[in-house]
């Protein structure tokens, strides 16, 4: 697949429908997973995916091949998702962080044993603003100053919202793990 990446890019640059379809087949699943991380509803994720692929096809001429195609496509998908959220004003819904939601010291829970679908569910259950910032910082790897610029918020807000997201996720992971442990204990008894 990868060895044909250049041909795929060239085909898309020429507007060949077959190449466009192939690109979608290869990367559509991964890009759709990204969309699902940023928006709550599957229908919205589908809209973002469509918009992103149209952008990808139209801007293929600007892909210079210095980075892997997947990363380039990923950045377009993330930007498209953020635009979608901006249109829906979700990123503005940044609530004040409660003291109880701030991270507390405790045993770090690993993600081992959790299904990807479960983790995706946890992220989607986060408050919208938190969800975006968590995705950008923890998974995409952006810095807080970059997120602040991107979402037009202060760096402090980005940090506090991330802390809140992390705390909420830890609670969910704890709860799930406790539930799993209890289930295991019960079955052992």
């Amino acid at each position: 697949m990868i060895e044909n990446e250049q041909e795929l890019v060239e085909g898309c640059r020429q507007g060949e429908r077959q190449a466009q379809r192939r690109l979608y087949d290869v990367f559509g699943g991964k890009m759709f997973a990204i969309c699902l991380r940023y928006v709550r509803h599957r229908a919205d994720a589908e809209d973002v995916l469509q918009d992103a692929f149209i952008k990808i096809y139209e801007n293929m001429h600007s892909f210079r091949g210095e980075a892997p195609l997947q990363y380039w496509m990923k950045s377009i998908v993330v930007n498209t998702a953020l635009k979608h959220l901006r249109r829906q004003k979700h990123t503005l819904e940044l609530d004040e962080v409660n003291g109880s939601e701030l991270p507390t010291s405790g045993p770090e829970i690993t993600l081992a044993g959790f299904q990807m679908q479960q983790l995706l569910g946890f992220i989607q259950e986060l408050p919208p603003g938190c969800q975006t910032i968590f995705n950008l910082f923890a998974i995409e790897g952006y810095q807080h100053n970059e997120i602040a610029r991107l979402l037009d918020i202060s760096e402090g807000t980005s940090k506090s919202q991330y802390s809140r997201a992390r705390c909420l996720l830890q609670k969910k992971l704890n709860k799930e793990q406790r539930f799993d442990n209890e289930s295991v204990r019960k079955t052992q008894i």
Partner: protein
Amino acid sequence: MSQSEKHKFEEEWQRAFESAAQTPPTSAWADIEARLDARKSAAVVPLAWWRSPRVLYAAAVAALLLLSWPVLRLSQSRSPDEVASESTKLSSGAATTSVPELADRAPETTMPLIRPEATTQASAPVRPTTAEPGTQRLASAPSAVAPALPSALRADAPERSFASGFMPKTGGDDGTTVNGFMPKSGELPNQTPTIIAITSSSRHGKPEDTERVIMGSSTVPLRTPALTFQIARRSPIGTSEGVVHLAQRAVHFDEAELPSWTRRGRVRELWAGVSLMPGLFNPKIDVTTAPAAFSNAKASRESLASASRGQLSYSVQLHGGKRLSRRWSVETGVSYLRGNSDFNSPGYILDATTSKSQNVLENALTTGKSSNDYFSTIAGTNNFDKSNGAYIALDQNAVNNYRYVQVPVQAGYTLNPDGRLSYTLLGGVVANLFLQNQIQDSQGATLKTTADDGIYRGLNWSASTGVRMNYRLAEHWDATLTGSYQKALASILHDSRTLDSRPQLYGVAWGVRYVF
């Protein structure tokens, strides 16, 4: 929680979603394909010719020619004064002007309107009648012409008085007077005097009928091309000679006697108006070469992918015009344009030491100027290190607004000029006087540029075209609705090495005008 623990948490999430994939719905590709097809078919429309500067220059030249043609035409044609003086000579009986001997006395035959042999006597002197000294001979017309004319204007129509005050009755017991064929004021179309001349002579009977004349106090040339051609076409001698003879005829009438609606159609009509035009202004910024900061950050290609988008703008216009002929007009004015737009860039440069950022537009504008002093004080963009910038691939929208004073000069060609609703096709050039440009990025930082900064051209030209609907509200007032399009003929920037900007504006203007 230690830093290593923090990093571990994030790394775990990154690993978990590194190769995550979810099968998209099967309908997604069909929708993408449909959208691609729609865009492809939309892209077939050959609008690219607008982008060619040659075509735009050609359009501007054509507009100027259109503008100057009516002026030249008017200057070459005879002025009303010339015709008046010629008519006066005729009236005094000393005229040697070529008023042809066209009389044909043969009744009830389809005799030609103008006898072929009459053309050889084109210089025949006018023979004034004793009753009406200083009169002009009229052409006779065969009876075949009369049926084609409105019944009210035919010789057998009831007698009506139009200009009895200054048109003395010419003798004749059969009532073949000029007055007899003149409808009342308000019922006479523009061509009436010429028609009168023909219908009066068409009452063939007595030889003296052919000597009937029309006399009046003022003179206006009657050169109605349509009617001239219509009459001449019926003549066996063809149109050319007919045109010669008929074009030289002058009919006298008092302008004050004209019905009011004909005065609106007079040639020297002036108007002044005001209008408001909501529209879409797009500066069409094109990054031609990546600025140094972007090249150093290995983001040359990304910087070229930036694009500007038009936003709702408005223009307040004061304009005036002059009608040069029945259909041609010239107009000018002054307007204030507030052009709003967005500049979208796929990333920006972040100075690692100062944490200051610039998108490609801001960077090109600040570095395009020889001295950065202005920007260092106003925009806080001083000390931007070109070699120490990192490219951040994040979509960024900046508000990019312009202010111009515009002076358009346009030629107009009006369709249905005498109707209550008329249409004017406009074409010309617009002088754009730059006032100010203001760029505001997503963080609220503002970069303001005025004409004194030397970045934008103080004067820039645009080609313009449009269509205007004029609706006559009252005798002096018109409501107007104008759809117009403007495109800059050259870049609005002094230095186009990095940026090229040729704005376009299209909108619909609502307004009123007063016709003097």
